[in-house]
């Protein structure tokens, strides 16, 4: 065995930081690890699990340009075309916004757990009855409840206006309606949003609706 020409001295501080040797082998590794952890968090926590109603054919449906008089993409704002949709009805059928084209539509988002919705329902039914002779319809969109829950609600309050089931919440999302129910949208016969009613719709709101849009 031969003696090395210059034996190394022991490293008294072995955990000393590594010197910079270029972007790839130093910062690149850190960036890669942060990226991998970030992707992992996104995959497990934020990724859409794909369980939407689109697969069943229900949900938000593209609005044909010919049916959009605003020339702007549909949005849940006054003056914009209402996001189009097709949803199941509690009796197993289907209905969509397009079915009511040519009528004023009071699109009412509701749920049976929502107290103000329960308070509002009799008023809406009475109003729908009173406007039966006019080109007007109340369309109730139930937010994420079962057909039996919606049917029980309709039976309790003796509702006869059409109801649809937004089972996966996709239409509620398109209309930016959260837990703060009820929310109602008045749509023109051309499908443009005329007015947004946040919260329980009042008798005054309905009177004004008649005066401004239906009485003429």
């Amino acid at each position, binding site marked *: 065995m031969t003696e090395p020409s210059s*034996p190394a001295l022991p*490293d008294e501080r072995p*955990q000393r930081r590594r010197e910079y040797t270029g972007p790839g082998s130093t910062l690149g590794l850190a960036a890669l690890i*942060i990226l991998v952890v970030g992707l992992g*968090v996104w995959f497990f926590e934020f990724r859409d699990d794909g369980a939407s109603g689109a697969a069943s054919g229900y949900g938000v449906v593209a609005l044909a340009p010919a049916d959009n008089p605003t020339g702007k993409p549909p949005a849940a704002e006054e003056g914009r075309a209402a996001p189009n949709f097709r949803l199941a009805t509690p009796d197993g059928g289907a209905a969509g916004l397009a079915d009511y084209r040519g009528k004023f539509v009071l699109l009412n988002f509701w749920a049976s*757990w929502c107290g103000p919705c329960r308070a509002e329902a009799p008023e809406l039914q009475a109003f729908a009855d009173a406007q039966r002779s006019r080109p007007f319809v109340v369309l109730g969109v139930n937010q994420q*409840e079962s057909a039996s829950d919606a049917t029980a609600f309709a039976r309790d309050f003796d509702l006869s206006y059409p109801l649809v089931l937004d089972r996966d919440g*996709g239409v509620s999302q398109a209309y930016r309606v959260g837990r703060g129910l009820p929310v109602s949208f008045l749509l023109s016969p051309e499908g443009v949003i005329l007015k947004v009613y946040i919260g329980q719709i009042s008798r005054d709101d309905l009177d004004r609706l008649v005066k401004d849009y239906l009485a003429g």
Partner: protein
Amino acid sequence: MTATVRPAEPALRAAGLDPLRFAWNLLTNVKFALVLVGTAAFAGLVGVVFPQVPGPMRANPAARSAWLQLREQDYGRFTGTLDYLGIFDVFHTAWFNGLWALIIVAVTVCTISRFRPTLRSVQSPTKVVGDAYFDHAHHRAAFSHAGGVDAVEDLLRSRRFRVERVRETPEAAYLFAERFAWSQYGTFLSHLALLLLLVGALLTRFVGFDRTFVLAEATPAAPVFDSPGPGQLFVRLVDAYRGKDTSGNIVDFHSDLEVRKGDRVVTCTATVNDPCTAFGYKIHQAAFFNDVARLRITDSTGRVVYDNVLDFDSQSVAVPILRVTAADGSVLFDQSLPQMDTDPGQSPGREDDVALSALSFPSSPGSTDVANYGVAWRVRDNELKLAVNAPGATPEELKVGQALALNGYRIEYRGVDSIPAIRVNDMPGAITDDHAAAVQMPVDRDGKPYLFVYGVDEDNLVLQPGRPVTGSHGFTYTFGDRVEASGISVKRDPGGMFIWIAVGAAIVGLAITFYIPRRRLWVKVEAGRTMMAGVAERTTRFSRELRLMGQALGAEDALLPGDLFEP
């Protein structure tokens, strides 16, 4: 000599301003890390000392503006500047979150930068040192003993050193011995723990969920999240249960729940300490309420116009408990007397308010004739004092425990009760100007709850469970019954597991670092003398340990004065 052409370096690097090198040096600098952590701690202190915008107001510009106006009382003209700097919303500012992002990057870079040197140090330690090291090492010893290099090897192995004879010359043999090499990873483990702690905190902050809400029995399933969507959860309270032991002490609260996500349903039972788990969320029992009433109102056509639960929400009213006995000793009335109206008095405050009610009871046992007396009470001298009015009689003020005789009846003021009471707006049939009615839920003499409603009809309504009462306006009121309700807490903390692992890693890492220091030892064994030099981090008396090894080898010249003294 051949001329070599060196590649042109980027201008920044040539000028000594390589930004990546600068970033590397900065992020791997312990002082910079301390500055970051110190700044974050200071910012946290600022967030604690200064008032912070309440969460629900944050997204409401009008509410936020009103809140800031209130702050002007304390901070005057600096309010706007402080708000601009985010001092009133520290934990949600871009600079605060950016600071933590930088800390995470710095800790990550720091941890990674130490991994490869640590690995190299453990896997490929320096085994051969120059002879001069035996004369200058900080920890060293020299002594003479018998047995030569074999004896030294045997001793080191007996002390669980890994020994390697690395070099031999005619004059000397060189050994490298090592113990607890793996403990070098302890510091790395501590760094990793810090990183995991930050990742866990971030996950908790941005992905964690915690909401508590009240659910009543016999009400539809309520959504958990603000936003609808396929991930929305619905929770229904099937049964809220308050268990009591034979002495009446409450021993158990639990809620039977039904949790739904899409078409999937999980049924489970939640208690305070034993949550049920559904769809990755933990659901705890957080509270119990039994002051909730179910009220249903139909109009004259039978259509439901009101169907809801009345959550009294701990609101109550103090009322007297009266007992009326006839001359023959039979009890005609024995229960709380609900309040029917309030005389507001002269003062705008409530100090001279007088509560009004009517005491009605059968004139004799089993009789359909009813005796009526007006009753009023008010708080005076911290006591609820009562007066009973009868035609032709002077009202006499009673204190708790007192009684009066009136028309052959003995009316005893037995005590004060607190009964659930709430004002219900937009009550169908309400005759008040604001369309509100007052609802109280006392219990009758058998302990059964009933609803007492005033403000909906010319007469007050007494609603017994399940027995509809139709008022003069045609509305029919049905008291479903008293239902129970639970405060339900839905939680999810994906960062929790990281934090537990981080805490464990930190404890193990610090324990290894401080209590199991790595020992590296270089030995030169000559014919008559053995020299040892070594490194043992965080071990101040390693030289003494080497000398004691010499003593164990039989050397008489190994020890120094005091070596055998144990501190």
